[in-house]
């Protein structure tokens, strides 16, 4: 076996490097653009309809003097989605704080609760109205999906919230929230990173952020260089994927028309009787699916190692 391969590392063998390369490329795009943005280059973001609605929603709530309800999704633990949602809610509660408008932030997960509690308090402090902040306005409701749904819709109905924000990971319960809020005529801004739930939000909510408009939100609202830069980086990556799809498709289309006398199995080329090209023979699919040939590597055995036996053998 080619010794050269042994020290490459399993994930880089054959075309394995491609995946790593792509990941690093995306990372590079993002970081580079963040740099550009920080360097004072002002970057363009197109208008995102759903996001202009946020101010309107809060304004409406303030007029009516009714609370704004926010749910940062049902993530199992705190992750970027929840953080992103809470960040948007920070923006919301800042405006709410200015107009002394009551807020309610319902958390599904204790870690998210901790983060939200801390973030929102900061918002009130930085607005210099720390006294207006009620720690109970950020609350942990339940971490069982439908208990949470029951609790939140109960809150919506009892508090008669004027504006509701559902941003983050939502699953089946999405429609429970949306319809309940709709039934009391609350103005709703919603978005789920779970694509399968978006149709229900579209059916029941006033404004829906589809797909990664959700991730674009904080950049769009705050125009923070870091966020804007990263957003541009993401766009570059999207363009790259689009190009890859178009070119790859064309390449495959051309290749698959032809015939081949070579076949590659387990990373080894071998001559075969002529046959028409299969999808798996194409350059692209070879690039995406590394075929690792079996390699034997001799290593010293650990002296105090006892070979594990199947129990009861």
């Amino acid at each position: 076996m080619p010794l050269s391969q042994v020290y490459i590392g399993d994930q880089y063998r054959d075309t394995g490097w491609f995946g790593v390369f792509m990941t690093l490329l995306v990372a590079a795009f993002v970081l580079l653009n963040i740099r550009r943005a920080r360097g004072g280059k002002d970057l363009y973001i197109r208008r995102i309809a759903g996001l202009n609605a946020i101010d309107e929603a809060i304004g409406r709530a303030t007029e009516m003097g009714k609370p704004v309800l926010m749910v940062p999704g049902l993530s199992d633990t705190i992750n970027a989605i929840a953080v992103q949602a809470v960040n948007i809610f920070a923006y919301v509660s800042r405006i709410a704080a200015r107009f002394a408008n009551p807020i309610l932030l319902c958390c599904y997960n204790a870690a998210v609760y901790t983060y939200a509690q801390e973030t929102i308090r900061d918002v009130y402090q930085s607005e210099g109205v720390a006294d207006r902040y009620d720690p109970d306005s950020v609350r942990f409701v339940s971490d069982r999906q439908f208990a949470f749904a029951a609790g939140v819709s109960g809150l919506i109905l009892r508090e008669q919230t004027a504006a509701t924000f559902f941003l983050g990971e939502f699953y089946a319960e999405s429609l429970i929230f949306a319809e309940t809020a709709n039934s009391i005529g609350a103005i709703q801004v919603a978005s789920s990173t779970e694509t399968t739930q978006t149709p229900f939000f579209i059916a029941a909510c006033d404004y829906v952020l589809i797909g990664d408009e959700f991730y674009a939100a904080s950049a769009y609202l705050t125009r923070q260089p870091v966020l804007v830069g990263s957003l541009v980086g993401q766009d570059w990556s999207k363009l790259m994927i689009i190009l890859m799809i178009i070119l790859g498709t064309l390449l495959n289309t051309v290749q698959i028309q032809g015939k081949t006398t070579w076949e590659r199995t387990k990373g080894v080329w071998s001559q075969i009787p002529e046959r028409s090209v299969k999808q798996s023979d194409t350059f692209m699919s070879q690039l995406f699916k590394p075929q690792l040939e079996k390699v034997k590597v001799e290593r010293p055995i650990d002296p105090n190692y006892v070979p594990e036996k199947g129990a009861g053998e």
Partner: protein
Amino acid sequence: MKGNLGEKLQSLPKPILYLILILATSIPLFFPTEVPNEPVESTKDFYATLMALPEGSKVLLMSDWTGSTRGESKGAFRSIFKILIRRKAKVAIYSAADPQAPRVAQDAINELNMERKRKNLPTFDRWNDWVNIGYFPNAEAAINGIANDLKGAFGGRKDFPPNSPPRDVFQSPVLQGVTKVEDFPLMLVITASKTSNFAVERVSGRTPLAFAVTGVMVPETQVFYQSKQIVGYCGGLKGVYDLEQLMESGVNFPDKATGKIKSDKLGTIEGFPDPDNKGQGTRYYPTLHYALALMIIMIILGNVGMFLAKRGDKS
């Protein structure tokens, strides 16, 4: 609410809608009917796979459903176990989606056993016929671990032999001599959540996979089925209904000519006629039609209303 018929049609009060829906989903339940039905290929393959298991084979089952989806998943779970019990299979159950799942699965099996007791049938005993390996948080990592290092993943987990304190699951007859996931001739996944995707990512190609998924997941599962990453699946209530019919009449059984359910692809697969086969699927499926019909009618009504109203404005 005043206004012409159009506006009325457009704005039926919600309580009335809800009432109609309740009626549409209740009344048919009292009048069990047979609906014409042709089991879909995926379910036929699913059934064929189960029936092809040699008696006494070991099956790895990931049970990721809880009470919230019992309407669909419990039916599938029960049908699958009825078949597995017939195949005298030995089942290792674990869960990766929800801490409740192991308990729910356990209670469901106990329920089956209680029914079997009443009929004086041999029960499907814990430890000897099935073990509950328990819940693994972080589904993706857990399934990865099980695929790569089953011993390590299940190591230290305990279950209950009859009348003795819990012992290492690898001691049970179910996991005798099992060291890697390939030692199971089949891995079943009964799930209402994403965990099926992880199973495909990590296990497909190592050992045959068969799914029982909820209706919502049918589209994504169909993709795996077409790409042959899973051997078959039973999707939603339709899947359960298909499965129950297959249990009743098999495929090309007794022979292709007279068989109720035919298939060009599959050979003869026996069925085992038994009133007990009729479960949730048979009970719920006819009713589903009324509900769906109601939905369609309501959508049409709304639109008709809109047009009438528009005309009303014009005139």
